């Protein structure tokens, strides 16, 4: 994939099409994208689009970042490409380990917030050391996510846990909320680390390693708020256009995403509801057992049997608690993450559509001969590359994402089934031993009567 991108890039720089692409693993088969971009090159160039300055994010340099995120200024080299491909082929060769823990509350005159400790252990050469420890707050994670989205608009960036939870939140900082968030943040960073492209992102590295002052000064760089606002207005306009000319495979993808999003949201709701019902069941069961003990106080012959029943119910309660905690650790966070992922996917589709729409609007401008033909043609060439890169990046990442999703869902639900089996097995053993003890007593009593 990267090979093809590089080849078309070379084309836009004026190099022969087949030349530089020879030693790339992508093969020489022409992509559908490349056919259309070459036909576009024939068209006349028109006036420059005056808003182009806003699109610095989508410049040729940015498209470099799609493949190799070391730094915006470094030119692509075949070596770095090969390194990357190697990484994809051997996903188990993990050389970056990240943990998120130790939430701490910080109180200032203006606000209260929580920071999390992030420990990174790595053997990578580009890191100055092999171990790093930093503290980051939720805002910083948001910043990182936005930077990643800027740099890789059509890659599937892992989702962040929500900013707030609307329902049932009494205070922002209760323990369960913090723990759930911590786990999700841990997942977030690890998913980035596992991603073949994102793992080499410079902002990611800085996020993991920079101490407080260095980090806050780094954050202040980059496109300002105004330009970002201007971008989003334009982006909305563009994305509306992009939908119409969406290629077939992306239509399919979009269709999948829509339905997947619906279903995963439903599953999230159902799972939360199951947890709630189980909690209420547990509460009632906790009251149920002790009544038998109360009863045993006024009985003689029945006292032992009643106490046994109470103890069985108590054991089943413990088994229920275990099942619930397994459920809330294995299934609920996974399902919820994919709910957030589905939102992320829709945003990615939009961004892809935007990029496409940019190209289409330039092409339109060309055909209506409104502006300088030569300049437009050059721009269109760049945009075609950009579209091709974006599409290819998304396609590859999409396959990877689907594979991961399948594995995650499969293991989450298999886990849930296992927890349930374990629960029922435990309860079964409890009641069976009660039964044996009672029938043994029966036999004892019967033989006593006979004497």
């Amino acid at each position, binding site marked *: 994939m990267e090979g093809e991108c590089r080849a078309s890039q070379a084309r836009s720089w004026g190099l022969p099409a087949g030349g530089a692409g020879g030693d790339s693993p992508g093969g020489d088969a022409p992509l559908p994208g490349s056919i259309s971009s070459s036909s576009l090159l024939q068209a006349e160039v028109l006036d420059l689009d005056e808003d182009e300055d806003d699109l610095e994010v989508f410049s040729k340099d940015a498209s470099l970042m799609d493949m190799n995120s070391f730094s915006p200024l470094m030119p692509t080299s075949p070596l770095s490409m090969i390194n990357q491909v190697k990484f994809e082929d051997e996903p188990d060769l993990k050389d970056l380990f990240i943990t998120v823990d130790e939430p701490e509350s910080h109180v200032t005159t203006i606000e209260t917030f929580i920071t999390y400790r992030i420990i990174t252990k790595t053997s990578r050469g580009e890191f100055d050391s092999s171990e790093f420890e930093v503290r980051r707050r939720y805002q910083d994670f948001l910043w990182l996510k936005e930077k990643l989205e800027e740099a890789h608009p059509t890659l599937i960036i892992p989702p962040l846990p929500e900013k707030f939870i609307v329902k049932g939140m009494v205070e922002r900082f209760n323990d369960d909320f913090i723990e759930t968030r911590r786990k999700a943040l841990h997942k977030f960073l690890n998913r980035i680390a596992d991603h073949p492209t994102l793992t080499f992102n410079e902002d990611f590295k800085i996020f993991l390693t920079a101490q407080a002052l260095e980090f806050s000064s780094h954050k202040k760089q980059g496109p300002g708020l105004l330009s970002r606002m201007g971008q989003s207005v334009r982006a909305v306009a563009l994305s509306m256009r992009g939908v119409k000319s969406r290629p077939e495979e992306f239509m399919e993808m979009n*269709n*999948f995403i829509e*339905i*997947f999003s619906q*279903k995963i949201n*439903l*599953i999230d709701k*159902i799972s939360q*509801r*199951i947890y709630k*019902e*189980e909690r*209420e*069941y547990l509460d*009632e*069961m906790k*009251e*149920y057992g002790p*009544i*038998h003990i*109360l*009863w045993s106080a*006024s009985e003689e*012959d*029945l006292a032992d*049997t*009643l106490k046994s*029943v109470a103890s*069985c119910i108590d054991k*089943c309660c413990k088994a229920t608690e275990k099942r619930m905690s397994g459920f809330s650790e294995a299934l609920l966070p996974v399902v919820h993450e994919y709910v957030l992922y589905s939102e992320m996917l829709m945003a990615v589709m939009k961004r892809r559509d935007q990029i496409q729409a940019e190209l289409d609007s330039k092409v339109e401008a060309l055909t209506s001969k409104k502006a300088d033909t030569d300049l437009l043609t050059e721009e269109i060439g760049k945009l075609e590359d950009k579209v091709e890169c974006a599409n290819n990046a998304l396609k590859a990442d999409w396959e990877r994402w689907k594979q991961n999703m*399948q594995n995650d*869902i*499969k293991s989450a*639900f*298999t886990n849930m*089934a*296992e927890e*349930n*089996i374990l*629960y*029922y*097995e435990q*309860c*079964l053993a409890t*009641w*069976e031993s*009660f*039964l044996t003890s*009672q*029938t043994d007593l029966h036999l004892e009593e019967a033989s006593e009567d006979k004497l």
Partner: protein
Amino acid sequence: MFLASMTENNFSLKKIEISVSEAEKRTGRNAMNMQETYTAYLIETRSVEHNDGQSVLTDSLWRRYSEFELLRNYLLVYYPHIVVPPLPEKRAEFVWHKLSADNMDPDFVERRRIGLENFLLRVASHPILCRDKIFYLFLTQEGNWKETVNETGFQLKADSRLKALNATFRVKNPDKRFIELKHYSDELQSVISHLLRVRARVADRLYGVYKVHGNYGRVFSEWSAIEKEMGDGLQSAGHHMDVYASSIDDILEDEEHYADQLKEYLFYAEALRAVCRKHELMQYDLEMAAQDLASKKQQCEELATGTVRTFSLKGMTTKLFGQETPEQREARIKMLEEQIKEGEQQLKSKNLEGREFVRNAWADIERFKEQKNHDLKEALISYAVMQISMCKKGIQVWTNAKECFSKM
């Protein structure tokens, strides 16, 4: 289960089987000539031939709940020393949301049918109650039975509630065992009600847990449509979720029978209290009679000796209006002596009655205690059996589901 041991019994030297085999909705006119709907139950009696064990249908008639009530009220009056078996509840109580509180609901009617059969079997297997003529007629005489019962005049013989309440408060020396029994029956009633209430809530919650899983089935099925590799696994796992969700209906229906067994003993507590009340009434009566006798004796003594130790109206009026003549005095003494003789006899017989009541009642209470211990133990064991069955079903469903998930 405990019912199995009571299908056969001795009855007027004949072995019989009783069953309440059907329930039917009827419409008729009530006492105020207004139309009403009620349920009638078919009672079939079979006599069992010794030789071949075959049973022959001897009697079959329809009765409604109010007639059962009449029978029981009669038994309560004529056998106050017996712990009379209770009827199943008149209205559905301790319901959880899915169960209907409607008396016409078919599930309720079915459970009541079983309860009424149980009642008849209990009466028929009681060594004393089974010989009662009215009970025999209840099983055999369809028409006119109501009139026959009412002709016994049992309603008149019934102790007034007010009298009983009065006695309970004022009795000085009831048998200690009855005090303990009353205390026990209060505790039994309170603890079983509590148990039944919480059990109903547990059932409700369990129902919720199972049923929500059913939603997985629907969504998995819809999701499987867009998945290529995962599709089959999702679809079949979804099917198992549906199976899981629907399994709760049978499970909870079985539990209702367990609840009914507990309910019977909840109502038995009231029957125990009735026996205690009768004892208190008799004891109070005895105490009052003894007190009356003692005061008469004292009056007699005072008249005879001329000393007035206690205040009496006669003494007062005598003081105010003058002494009575010796003849008058003699007459009074004679009357009192007669009354005292009568009173002593009455006291003797009351004492005898009281002791006999205590003896008979206590014998039945011992019998009842054994029955209760046996039945409740069986019920608790059957509860465990139900839980085991539920767990086994759960293991099976989730094992199947796990297999589907792992194939995704």
